[in-house]
């Protein structure tokens, strides 16, 4: 079911225009422009310290770029607060795991349902009635996601002592629970072996495509997330999954194109891939 790669026709979902971000002396992003389109998985690659994570951080409002603008569905969100960005439909995972370590897997995902819930102090404190029903409603969605990602065995475990790979999956679950329009993944497969990478790759593809009637009550799984941004250092994964790739180096965009184009771009090879990747 691979999508045809005709990027020009896909509508732009998020548009980054001339972003510049610096910290004191370090320029993390310099005049970077990227269009993130609907119906595509966009990969961002580049050497360590190139500014990939910074780009995501700008996208969801964690960093405020000094110059340039970010248009999300036409609205400028370059100075938005992170929680607002989440409400607008931007969810992400983190390269160094950032879970709520004192909560269980289930609660981590439920925490992300926060934005959809209507409880207030009063109904929450009384619990019985509206809050209870709401909890159950959202619990269903979360259980669907847990089921989808196959993490039921750790559903009620506090996440702090789970193995690395498991925690990465829980991060994904939490991001899905936010039912985002755009999913941002920062190195979701780091520290996994090939088999586990296959799992995650499968999840990403499934999320992208949607699961239809397997999960009729959970829109995010049923309809899929049609815009995914992926940062990853495993070229096998990137080349297979991405519809389009943007390459950053020292804060600048040095290339953009289909996996085929990128694989053979001499600039990218010398800055990032190295000769070994070509074989």
């Amino acid at each position, binding site marked *: 079911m691979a999508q045809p790669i005709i990027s020009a026709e896909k509508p732009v979902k998020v548009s980054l225009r001339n972003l510049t971000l610096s910290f004191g002396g370090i320029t993390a992003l310099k005049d970077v422009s990227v269009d993130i389109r609907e119906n595509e998985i966009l990969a961002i690659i580049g050497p360590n310290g190139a500014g990939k994570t910074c780009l995501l951080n700008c996208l969801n409002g964690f960093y405020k770029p000094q110059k340039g603008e970010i248009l999300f569905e036409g609205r400028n969100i370059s100075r938005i607060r992170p929680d607002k960005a989440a409400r607008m439909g931007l969810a992400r995972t983190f390269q160094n795991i950032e879970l709520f370590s004192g909560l269980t897997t289930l609660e981590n995902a439920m925490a992300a349902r926060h934005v959809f819930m209507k*409880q207030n102090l009063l109904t929450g404190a009384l619990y019985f009635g509206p809050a209870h029903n709401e909890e*159950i409603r959202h619990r269903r969605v979360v259980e669907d996601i847990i089921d989808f990602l196959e993490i039921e065995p750790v559903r009620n475990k506090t996440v702090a002592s789970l193995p690395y790979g498991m925690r990465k999956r829980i991060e994904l679950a939490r991001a899905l629970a936010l039912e985002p329009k755009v999913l941002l993944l920062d190195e979701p497969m780091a520290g996994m072996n090939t088999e586990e990478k296959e799992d995650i790759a499968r999840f990403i593809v499934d999320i992208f495509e949607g699961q239809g009637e397997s999960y009729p009550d959970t829109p995010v799984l049923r309809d899929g997330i049609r815009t995914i941004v992926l940062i990853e250092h495993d070229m096998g994964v990137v080349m297979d999954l991405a519809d389009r790739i943007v390459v950053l180096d020292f804060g600048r965009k040095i290339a953009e194109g289909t996996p085929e184009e990128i694989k053979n771009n001499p600039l990218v090879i010398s800055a990032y891939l190295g000769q070994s990747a070509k074989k």
Partner: protein
Amino acid sequence: MALPCGTRNFSYAADMAIFRTKTQWALLLIGLAVLFTAPLWLSFYWLGVVNLIGITIIAATGLNLLTGYCGQLSVGHAGFIAVGAFTSAVLTAKLDLPFLVTLPAAGLLAGLIGIIFGVASLRVKGFYLAISTIAAQIIILWVINHLDNITGGFMGMAVPRAEIFGFTFKTPQSLFFLIMTVAVMVVFFAKNLARTRIGRAFVAIRDNDLAAEVMGINLFRYKLLAFFLGCFLAGVAGSLTAHWVTYVSAEQFSITESILYVGMIIIGGAGTTLGPVLGAIIIRLLQQGVTYVSPILESTFFGNLPSGFTAGLGPFLFGLVIVLFLVLEPRGLAHRWNLFKASYRLWPFSY
């Protein structure tokens, strides 16, 4: 008897209930029955102690929401209790307002002042925040001390007894019912808040505030909400204190008391509903122990003890208990209790 080996649930509602087995419900009912018949079999003295514990549980539960759940360390809790106490005192004594108005008013004012000082928490954490809350307490007490026209200044002021629909809460027994009703309600509300949307947001902020924000939780609103709730309950406890002691002066609300509250939630188990309850009971009973033991030791071993031994015994024991608890059970008694429950539930297979 059927052991609850691996209690399993078949619906989300059942899975989310606090009390899941018949035994648990029975224990709850028995517990409540024992609690509310206490005035029949407890002496004045023990009622006094239990009343104090009840008030303490209310304030400690507030601190637990703020510190245990939301992770905002406050070492100025007694300052907010003072706000509640004086609010209630002034409103009843000077304006003749009914207790049913002054009690929530005390909570509200304490909560609002809590929000003001809580604004600092948006930028700092941990020890910085701890000190700013100490500062809050010192400033609050200074203001109370100098609003002499309203609060009686250094002298403090007398407080009338609480009155609801013409009934005056005067005897330790009637106060017991008043205080315990509020305490049970507060614990129940806190438990519910903790396990629903707001509580999860609090814990998310405690465990990883950056990620929480990225997940759509408004830090500004929720940190302030935590301060409001924590201080609101402090205010409620303050109001009850005022009508229980019947005299308030700023001196009664010391930094030491604030520190004790922190000790309570740590010993009991921060971030659990049971924690502040256990902590309040232990610390208050320990204080009573010291009240008793030191004079007894002094008279029993007259002359055989180094002079000053008893004077130092109180703080020494106190510190020792806090330290021992932390070293031996750093996650608090509630944690131990949960382990115990878990192993009981799966008995006889401990793993």
